[in-house]
């Protein structure tokens, strides 16, 4: 029967062998970490590129739309402004100074008079 000392030595030896085996099988952590860092670093520009692939055409489209629409809107506003201004200008001469000579203000007074007499030459006001 083996003594406790022998058993202890045996166990220690086996444990050391197992430890060596594990150490041999386990890859080095430093290169793994370095590779992981590298892959993260590589992935970042790729995702940025992917975003840019969508964002850039969108930005260009928005820019072009703005370039096309802004002057059109400005032209529309200018049109509205000109028409409104013209309308005001026209209003200033809605009644010409000589209008009164064509249609005197007193002409309407006769319309309110009743019919007088009958037959030819009779005056008939519109009631």
């Amino acid at each position, binding site marked *: 029967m083996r003594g406790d000392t022998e058993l202890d030595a045996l166990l220690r030896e086996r444990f050391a062998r197992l430890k060596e085996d594990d150490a041999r099988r386990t890859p080095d952590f430093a290169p793994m970490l370095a590779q992981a860092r590298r892959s993260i670093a590589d992935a970042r520009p790729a995702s940025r590129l992917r975003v840019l692939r969508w964002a850039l055409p969108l930005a260009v489209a928005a820019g072009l739309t703005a370039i096309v629409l802004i002057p*059109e809107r400005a*032209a*529309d506003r*200018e*049109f*509205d402004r*000109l*028409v409104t*201004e*013209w*309308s005001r*200008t*026209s209003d*200033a*001469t809605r009644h*010409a*100074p*000589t209008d009164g000579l064509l249609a005197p203000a007193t002409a309407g007074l006769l319309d309110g008079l009743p019919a007088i007499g009958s037959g030819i030459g009779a005056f008939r006001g519109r009631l």
Partner: protein
Amino acid sequence: MRRRAWGTALALLMLTVAPGAVAAQVAPQVDDPIARTLFEPELIMQHRRAIELTDRQRDEISRVIKDAQGQVVSMQWDLREQADALATELNRPRIDLDRALDRMSRVLQTEGKIKQARLTLLVRIKNILTPEQQESLRKLRAQPSSGVPEG
């Protein structure tokens, strides 16, 4: 109580009728043989979407309005001065007829020029519009206006 009911009815009637009356006052006089055949810029502005006014047409109309605007404003100043001169002449207790007629002739000349400039503008605008747009505008003008621009 009954009086209050009548008052309310009258107020409602006025609210119903008044906008129509105002619209009728604002609407162009279709009995006017010249106005009937031409199209005011305001009408085009109001219905530009409905008649599908192109950007090119809008720009051309803007240009002709700008041309007319400058001319007419200047002539309006002349007209005011000439009308004042005529009024001063007519305000005398005894009027020199020849001088008064001369003053009036000047007023009439300027009035004529303004009308000419206005007709020129309206003819130019009509010539910019297609026959289909003109037809649409005629129909739209005949409809009672809501007063809200479409464009």
